[in-house]
């Protein structure tokens, strides 16, 4: 039941090296779909549908202005969300109440989808993509190298240049180049355990061992802590010049903030009702 968070090879992390550009990254390398050039007969006489479609995809590529802070946010939030999935998984097996199981199922569904969105966002911009693997309560995150086939219509990217770093002795690595401490709270580079709100190994073990009403109380307490951390991460993102300008980044970060803030309020009410009813049975 130990949380395993292997660290990553710094050189692979384009967006995390200390020499990474802070300027918006040129969108030219982004692998969004390139429409077929052969033009079918335009259906509307006065407008050429193929030309419009080409323009559409060109605009979508051009809209990808982003900074290192956006990349760091996406990569970090994937790991952050992944821990929420581990916690949500526990609710199924630890005798959680129906209300907490329902909450956990929704967190699981929502954050799984958001991880996919963030992975797609990174892949579309040719950035290293954290791949999440959960076995039991063990969370492994591996970095998939940026696709070398940038500009290609690679949508899944799962099989592009992914390297397996499992089994490497990360403890001996020099993490200097990955130190995000200057980004306000993302200490320890890609060691996700240093991100705001992340549960420690001990907290995770405590939650994993809890059952029934005690599990409910701990789950709510720790998920509130975890969500509050995500809100901090969004605020850190917004504190950077030029960050969250890209539609996808602004929307995703704002949505995470809004939804998790709402969920914190709901969990706090659930926690209050648990506390209040603790001695009434």
């Amino acid at each position: 039941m130990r949380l395993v968070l292997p660290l990553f090879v710094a050189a692979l992390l384009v967006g995390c090296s200390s020499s990474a550009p802070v300027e918006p990254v040129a969108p030219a390398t982004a692998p969004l779909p390139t429409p077929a050039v052969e033009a079918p007969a335009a259906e509307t006489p006065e407008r050429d549908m193929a030309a419009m479609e080409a323009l559409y995809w060109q605009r979508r590529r051009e809209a990808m202005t982003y900074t290192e802070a956006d990349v760091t946010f996406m990569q970090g939030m994937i790991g952050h969300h992944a821990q929420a999935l581990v916690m949500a998984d526990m609710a199924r097996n630890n005798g959680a109440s129906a209300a907490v199981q329902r909450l956990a199922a929704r967190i699981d569904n929502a954050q799984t989808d958001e991880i996919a969105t963030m992975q797609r966002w990174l892949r579309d911009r040719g950035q290293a993509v954290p791949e999440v693997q959960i076995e039991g309560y063990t969370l492994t995150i591996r970095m998939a190298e940026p696709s070398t086939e940038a500009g290609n219509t690679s949508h899944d990217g799962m099989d592009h240049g992914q390297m397996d770093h499992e089994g490497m002795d990360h403890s001996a690595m020099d993490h200097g180049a990955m130190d995000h401490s200057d980004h306000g709270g993302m200490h320890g580079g890609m060691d996700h355990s240093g991100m705001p709100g992340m549960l420690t190994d001990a907290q995770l073990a405590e939650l994993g061992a809890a059952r029934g009403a005690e599990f409910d109380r701990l789950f709510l307490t720790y998920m509130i802590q975890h969500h509050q951390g995500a809100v901090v991460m969004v605020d850190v993102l917004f504190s950077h010049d030029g960050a969250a300008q890209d539609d996808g980044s602004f929307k995703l970060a704002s949505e995470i903030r809004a939804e998790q803030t709402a969920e914190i309020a709901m969990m706090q009410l659930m926690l209050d009702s648990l506390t209040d009813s603790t001695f009434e049975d």
Partner: protein
Amino acid sequence: MTRLALALLTLAFLVSPTAFAQGMASADDPRVGLGAGLFDAEEAIWNLRMLSTTPPPEDFIGVTNSDLAFQGNYVFQGNYNGVIIWDVSDPANPELVTEYLCPASQSDVSVYGNLMFVSGEGLGGRLDCGTEGVEERVSEDRLRGIRIFDISDIRNPEYVSNVQTCRGSHTHSVLKDPNDDENVYVYVSGSAPVRPAEELPGCVSADPDEDPNTALFRIEVIQVPLADPASAAIVNSPRIFDDLAPAPRRTTPSPADVRELEEARANGAYIVRMFGQERVIPDRFVTMLLNSVVQQRGGEGEPTEADRVTLRENIQEIAESTFGISAEPREPGDGPQRGPNQCHDITLYPDLGLAGGACEGYGLLLDISDPVRPTRLHAVADSNFSYWHSATFNNDGSKILFTDEWGGGGQPKCRVDDPMEWGANALFTLEDNEMVFKSYYKMPAPQTNQENCVAHNGSLIPIPGRDVMVQSWYQGGISVFDWTDINNPVEIAYHDRGPINAESMGNGGSWSVYWYNGLIVSSEIARGLDIFELAPSEHLTQNEIDAANTVVLTYKNAQGQPMYEWPPSFALLRAYMDQIDRTGAVPAEQMAQGRMMVADAEMAEGAEQRSILNMLAGGASQMASDTPAGRAASRFAETARALASM
């Protein structure tokens, strides 16, 4: 028992999920398996006719189309690059009237008279409408708030003014108060983070107990003087969420409680003071606490008598740290603010003096009879709801529907295994200004992983005597449903396209769709402007459609709900007749006779016409009762009498 039994707050999360009557459509639904494409996706359509689909003008292609507003024959379509204005006098061939380039997300747009209002929330919006964005975290060039334009010359909107707000404007609501002809009011709430005070002085992102001037936990009310719109300004920031946190269940224990407590104390029970009241700790928690005492001293095994003494002497402190309780009573507003800190949409229904606020984890019913000072009447929460997004009242205000934009609109929440009560609509009756939950409605056709899909914007269609709504579901298409029977909402028409891209989630689908003077107009995020009309079916007759089309609006805004009123007409009479017929309560022969009389009445004139109409009214009145047929008959009689007196 919990503290949550509040007079003004219904918390549904403590009850188990309501059995879900509505099922997912079968796999042979034509919407399943549609081929992908941007401008050439496969389509499925049922009980609607598509009149036109028009791609955006060149400067707006590839940029998100957002919300719609209507005035006269014009449709105003927001786009993250500005506003597009169409003339839909010929709905089969919308004419591009104006393309106003002025980037800002979400560019939700409203109109009133010669004024147009546009929301700006994202970080790239510029005061000068430039397309270069704003890179700096703090900049005097940034616009986050409301832009105001004069559209007296529809082809040349004139940029009049801005009102900057702390969180920008994600959406907004324009309120024309029936008793105030000198101003309109714009309610603004933002879901994005608060901007730095260096950029807009006074903006603070903090809990209210840390800083009472926080930009969180409030909405902004902007007053726009019609004679001088350039002087528009924020006149109030009401905290409509205050005290939504649970309040103490009671302040003094009952005599029975006191007696039980004293008996327990006499028997040596462990007792703590919790939120102002003494409580007995149940045995299983005593065991837990004793074990922690053993652990604290580094011991093992069973607790000793000394451990019991330690626990008894320190019980209050140990219980407080273990259970997170406090000895002090809770006061309203005590502790962290737990209500929502913003609303997504606020739907205004000025004719009723009510608004529906969809605010984070709550649905709120607001009294807006004083437009500057909206107050909260009631609040609901629902553990099946992730993010309360928008509200729609039925026409007579006896029902309200809230949407849950689970996943924010960018996620595929209509997959075959996504629960039907998540990312859906929740339907409530309104009883003495309290919302009572009845059922959920979700667009029933399963969508792919590549289609963002969740409940989004829509409006009522003025089918007389029925509650019918058309609604956007992003790439889930548009769905028309009837919620007259609030326990059993049912889909009666739809349109859907395949995904934008078969392999990857594209940014597309219907952002919003509204009925406007006989047209059903949809803002397609990627594909442009779609215009439909209703087609008759077993669920909806041509007479009902004709009667709906007698309702004429002069304008319509996304978050403003007009009260539909049907002028007396023969179409209306026939619509009610069809509704009586649909119930099966009246024999076919009798229906045929009635229809003949209606035809006679329409052909007749003067006294003869009045006489037939009064005869029809008299007959129908006798059927009036509190059943679907009886209600339709009563409306029929009322319409016949109104026609007779014209």
